[in-house]
């Protein structure tokens, strides 16, 4: 796994897709999870979905009968990326908090 920081949009999209969702569902889920702080705009969401499909971190599910909208789901490598990112975030959080609590100012 490459040692890279995910963007906020990508991180929230990935953790939204542990259950299948279409674009609008992802946007709503991210909005709710972040309590309205992250309001993904449609063009940004589309770009992120396209890049994640290309990377193979998410996949498009086959069309269901009567459904026009494409649904997406996270893949095994997407799951690995989320776990690696969580470790990285944990490290940031731990280091940040220990410095602040130590009274660095």
């Amino acid at each position, binding site marked *: 796994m490459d040692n890279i920081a995910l963007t906020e949009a990508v991180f929230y999209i990935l953790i939204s897709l542990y259950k299948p969702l279409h674009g609008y569902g992802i946007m709503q889920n991210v909005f709710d999870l972040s309590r309205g702080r992250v309001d993904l705009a449609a*063009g940004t969401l589309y770009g992120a979905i396209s890049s994640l499909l290309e990377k193979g971190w998410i996949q498009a599910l086959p069309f269901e009968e009567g459904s026009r909208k494409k649904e997406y789901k996270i893949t095994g490598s997407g799951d690995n990326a989320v776990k690696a990112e969580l470790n990285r975030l944990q490290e940031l959080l731990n280091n940040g908090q220990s410095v602040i609590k130590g009274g660095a100012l």
Partner: protein
Amino acid sequence: MRHKVSKYFNLAEYEKEEKWLNEMSSIGMHLVDVNFTKYTFEDGLPGEYIYRLELLENMPRHPQSKAYIGFMEDMGVEYVASVFRWVYFRKRASAGPFDIYSDLSSKLRHIKRINLLASVVSYANAAAGVANLAIACKGYIEHRGYLGYNLFSGVLNIAIAFIILFILKPIRRKQKELQKESLVRE
């Protein structure tokens, strides 16, 4: 009722154009069609729609653009019209704020796309200008002072190349600002 309005915006003024369309919407004039500098508006409720412009990577009929426009429609965004690769989107204001991009990297990608288009058109004109001037020089030498249309075309091409670069200055500045900002935050 439909109203036709003529107005000109250059490549660097898409935000100004967007602002104007939203001002028109706020007085109940909703854009329904664009044909270069001719804008068609339809009467409606004041402030019913929010308008946004975007330069696509491909022409609107290209399959990739069609897939994108279909996605936008699923997100409650309506495709209104297009001029070359520029598309006009709108969304009902009652559905909340409407932006096409919500983070720095996607905004930067869009700005870069606009600058690339401008550079290509500008360099193509510069190249055509040099070619025209070369033909004019050759004509001058071989036919004793005959210049023909090539001198005129060449000067015109080079002037256009410079005008485009000049017009796009604020967009290049904006790209630099976003690039600088992206070193610090997302």
